[in-house]
């Protein structure tokens, strides 16, 4: 049973990461910095519970706010560039964050052991959950409470005026600007919201793995972050969740029996998926079909 709880935790955390990239992608910006925000959330969240002794919820919120602030600051220079330039700028930022933690030492003595991040060795002993007697099931439920809260919030946002504004900027900046949308405000807030969600995800991630190191937050994680919403089709938050289940559940777990060949197939399947369904596995038509299936009216 623990295996399935572990699965649920992993899928939950990656869904948060995917959602953070989803918000930014709605405005047409490909941000490879999500892994960086995730890392900031992870390290700060861990430091707040381990070094400052905070409860997990305020620690997560504080870490998320810090990530959001950093994301907002990154958002401003990012506005000067578009397309490939933005991809490279955000990629470089994410890498810079990773290397920053690689060179970051801050340890204090707690009892008879040293705790805190230690450069290349990473940040060990983030033992908030075991110390407070949380079972795997408790942690899984805790994670999913956050995931569902984030998904509901984004779902509601998508249906509201805010969602239309974000998508308008994503579809055509010039047209959006000409109807009086403030591009700077929209893009920076999207980055900020994305940073907040990524920070939340990172803080949970640090606590359920109990050990983080800079290598966890490299380019690969950044590409996963944008892969989820793109594969999910960018039409709704459900797509992100389905893409995470498809990648982490199906491609990683179900294909485990294939051993070494799994990773090979992994890349090939992504290439195939984008050729067969370039709009994403779960595109706008699929969303409408789902709505009809659930008895709702066509949006």
């Amino acid at each position: 049973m623990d295996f399935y709880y572990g699965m649920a935790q992993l899928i939950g955390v990656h869904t948060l990461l995917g959602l953070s990239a989803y918000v930014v992608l709605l405005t047409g910006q490909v941000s490879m910095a999500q892994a960086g925000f995730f890392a900031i959330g992870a390290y700060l969240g861990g430091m707040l519970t381990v070094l400052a002794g905070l409860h997990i919820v305020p620690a997560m919120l504080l870490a998320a706010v810090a990530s959001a602030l950093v994301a907002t600051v990154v958002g401003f220079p990012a506005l000067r560039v578009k397309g490939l330039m933005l991809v490279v700028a955000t990629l470089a930022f994410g890498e810079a964050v990773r290397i920053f933690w690689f060179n970051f030492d801050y340890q204090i003595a707690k009892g008879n052991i040293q705790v805190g991040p230690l450069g290349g060795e990473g940040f060990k002993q983030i033992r908030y959950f075991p110390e407070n007697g949380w079972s795997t099931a408790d942690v899984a439920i805790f994670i999913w409470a956050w995931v569902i809260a984030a998904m509901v919030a984004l779902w509601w946002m998508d249906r509201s005026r805010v969602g239309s504004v974000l998508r308008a900027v994503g579809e055509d900046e010039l047209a959006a600007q000409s109807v009086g949308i403030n591009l700077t405000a929209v893009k920076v807030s999207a980055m900020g919201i994305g940073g907040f969600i990524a920070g939340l995800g990172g803080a949970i991630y640090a606590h359920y793995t109990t050990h983080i190191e800079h290598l966890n937050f490299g380019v690969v994680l950044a590409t996963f972050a944008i892969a989820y919403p793109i594969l999910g089709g960018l039409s709704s938050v459900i797509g992100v969740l389905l893409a995470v289940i498809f990648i982490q559940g199906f491609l990683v777990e179900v294909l485990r029996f294939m051993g070494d060949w799994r990773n090979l197939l992994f890349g090939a399947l992504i290439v195939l998926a984008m050729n067969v369904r370039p709009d994403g596995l779960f595109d706008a038509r699929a969303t409408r079909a789902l709505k009809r299936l659930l008895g709702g009216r066509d949006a």
Partner: protein
Amino acid sequence: MADYWWDVIDPIQSVLDGMMFGSIYALIGIGFTLIFGVMHKINLAYAAASIGGAYASLVAFQILSAPALVVFLCAAAASGVIGYIVYICCFRFIPEHLPLATLMASVGMLILIDEVVVHATAGMPEPYPAMFDDVMIDISPFWIRGDLLMIFALSVVAMLILLYVLYRTRLGIATRAVAQQPSAAQLCGIGQQQTNAVTFVITGALGGLAGAMVGASVGILSPLLALPLTVKGLVVTVIGGLGSIPGAIVAGILVGGFENVFQYFRGVTERDIYVMLLLFVFLTFRPQGLFGRISTRD
């Protein structure tokens, strides 16, 4: 005064070494820039394909024990073929108005190429041949490593050939025409698909040479080289100005020297932070890059 002079020599030496190594970054940057110029798309699988081509050339080295120069050329040829495969798999059939799909497909291809390499070599680094690696040229007070000089020379030759192809042949005219105005080029009877495919093969060959140079200067090949090379190549592309070949060359050499001098002062773990800072300085103060023009179309 004399002591002061000696403190300067080592940093200058590392800048020189770095600049010669930077010619590899320049080659990768040219590849990104050319594909961007022609298709307005990013091929994230490019550096992985370059390393993949270098790996393929190991067959020539290990089984036929060919001389180093032949191995390098094999790497270029193999990478050209991989470039064509990447084009077919990730760019040919995906509609042009969906840049995210091609981006993602090329990421999938990056993973695929990396994994094929890991699978074929069981993840172990492989030794790679070099030329003149026992030569040290003494131009007092500096030393020039023979293998680095060789890399620099080969890169320059490759760049000159590329510039000749681009500016002196019909193929190059076609490529530049498609880059400038795709529909007008098509009206003049230039096949867009063929031109794109040829661009991928040419840049692939260039990348394969770069991959071989990496192997020759480091002495080993490892699949772990692909991602850092991708990041550096993209940084070089942006610093040089998107679509600008001279920009990519200058930026590659600049980044190479810059990173090596910071490696000398701050160590290998911190040096990339300063490369990223250099990029941010450019993005803030000169977002169009060294030689780029501010794009008015789009």
